[in-house]
């Protein structure tokens, strides 16, 4: 999958960003927390590539450091939603009796626009890294449940699953050994998209002042501080934003590329695709 150039470029970018932010304190020429009030809001220059902020700190260094929490929140939310969504999706798809109960709850949670549910939870829990992760996981896992459930419904009546059932294999084994490997690709694709969405959502919540504590640098917090200087020092707003866009874009390209790579019909087998469409149509009517 990663052999395709389209998937490789965003993947390399994300790895480089991760390495850069983790090792930032070793290679950054100026410490990102170094303040010098005589250097307030300076435009980008050879020394300060992205200019300086309202405390005279280097915006380039700040942006690199801020990637830590932004990536951490995004990744943790993607991981937790994937785990929760996979478990509930497997159960809902496999057990008919539990299906209606689980899906009613999921439908109820999907009745909120996702940012709104996160806002409501943050309002209750208060803003902090942990609470943002909880709030965003809560808003994003219902989508994963839906995706997993519908994939399980497609594979659960295939003959090898039936065969496993009749030969007396226990349900947990059937679910983890026979069904899960067959629904893994939509899970990975959806997980990548949730990663991208959580980075955007964390930035939005922090920007609104209800996200991660203001003392912790994240891209959203930087933009929140930069907002009032938008006319005086536009670079303060522009550069952290560009980093959000590139990172989220990289994840979205990766998700899109993985979806195509996993889809056997997308590889030019047009006849197979046609057959699938006919089948789908019959199913729909």
């Amino acid at each position, binding site marked *: 999958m990663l052999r395709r150039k389209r998937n490789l470029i965003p993947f390399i970018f994300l790895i480089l960003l991760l390495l850069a932010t983790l090792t930032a304190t070793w290679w950054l020429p100026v410490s990102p927390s170094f303040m010098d009030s005589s250097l307030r809001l300076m435009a980008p220059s050879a020394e300060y590539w992205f200019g300086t902020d309202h405390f005279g700190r280097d915006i380039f260094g700040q942006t690199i450091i801020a990637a830590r929490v932004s990536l951490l929140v995004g990744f943790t939310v993607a991981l937790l939603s994937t785990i929760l969504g996979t478990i509930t999706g497997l159960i809902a798809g496999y057990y008919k009796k539990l299906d209606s109960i689980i899906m*009613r*709850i999921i*439908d*109820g*949670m999907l*009745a*909120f*626009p*996702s*940012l*709104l*549910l996160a*806002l*409501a*939870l*943050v*309002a*209750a*829990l*208060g803003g902090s890294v942990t609470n943002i992760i909880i709030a965003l996981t809560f808003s994003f896992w219902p989508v994963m449940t839906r995706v997993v459930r519908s994939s399980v419904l497609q594979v659960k009546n295939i003959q090898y699953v039936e065969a496993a059932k009749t030969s007396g294999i226990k349900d947990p084994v059937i679910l983890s050994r026979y069904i899960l490997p067959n629904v893994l690709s939509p899970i990975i694709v959806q997980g990548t998209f949730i990663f*991208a969405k959580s980075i*955007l959502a964390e*930035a*939005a919540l922090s*920007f*609104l*002042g*209800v996200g991660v504590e203001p003392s912790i640098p994240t891209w959203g917090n930087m*933009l929140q501080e*930069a*907002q009032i200087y*938008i*006319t005086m020092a*536009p670079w303060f*707003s*522009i550069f952290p*934003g560009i980093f*959000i*866009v590139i990172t*989220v*874009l990289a994840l*979205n*390209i990766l998700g*899109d590329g993985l979806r195509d790579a996993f889809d056997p019909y997308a590889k030019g087998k047009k006849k197979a695709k046609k057959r699938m*469409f006919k089948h789908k149509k019959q199913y*729909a*009517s």
Partner: protein
Amino acid sequence: MLRYTLRRLLAIIPVLLIVSIIVFMIVHLTPGNPAYLILGEDSSPEAIEQLEQQLGLDKPKVAQYFDWLGSIFTGDLGQSIYSEEPVTQIISERIGPTFSLMVISMLLTLLVAIPTAIFIVWKRNTMLDPLFLSGSLLGTSIPEFWLALLLVLVFGVTIPIFPVAGYISISESLMDWLHHLILPGIVLAAVEIGLIARMLRDSMLESVNQDYTKTARGKGVKESTVLMKHVFSNALIPTTTVIGVTIAGLLGGTVIIETIFTIPGVGQLLIDSIHRRDYPVIQGVVLVIAFVYVLINLIVDLLYAFLDPRIRYD
């Protein structure tokens, strides 16, 4: 159709129930005593007790929930702790600006997305298609608040032709109303356009090589007529679903955009109330938005079933 309508109506009851439980829990998830949180740590015990009684916090949780649910059915969403006005009244005063913003951005989205999708399907075998796909991917990767900041920078400072803050009611002046909503409308629409145009393109491409379009082409019908009459009109049915998706995106987006452009709508009310810890208002706003969202989805589903009879007999 009647049977389907009834079935869909029944199906939203459990959804609304779950919604109400989640909204109810907003206050009760707060760490510690909500009364303390609202009044502050150093308030007098009498004041705490009075507020606890006012909010019904001294009763068991389940009883509190049913009391609260009961009052919602009578249209009573409680009282703001901050301004002490009824929540229903506060929200109804704020709906106008939010509704206006959503209508404007909805129109902008459809006005750009539909022609773009048709054009891309028409030129589907050229370099425009992959270019469009990359563009729509980029569109969904841009945080709307950042785009708003950039537009404020460009139109507020460099070319000051649009106001970057405030709201004028439509009853005061139609032109001023529109003038103030152009920039926030563009920001909200920009994020949706890529997504909607992409979905439209996909559904149009599915019918571009169907037998009936081939027949039309075989008869010598012009490609543009084939696209407009046969492909687009068939793609319009799944487009009703797209409208539902757009409204969902817009509902979430307005919260951020209203705050940046200081539009006194429901979204700004929500953010202000979160900062003030005004829980009855937070609950009210979240409940109303979720309710509207469920209602819109219901209407879209019914419309879909009305247009495409196959759905009804599922």
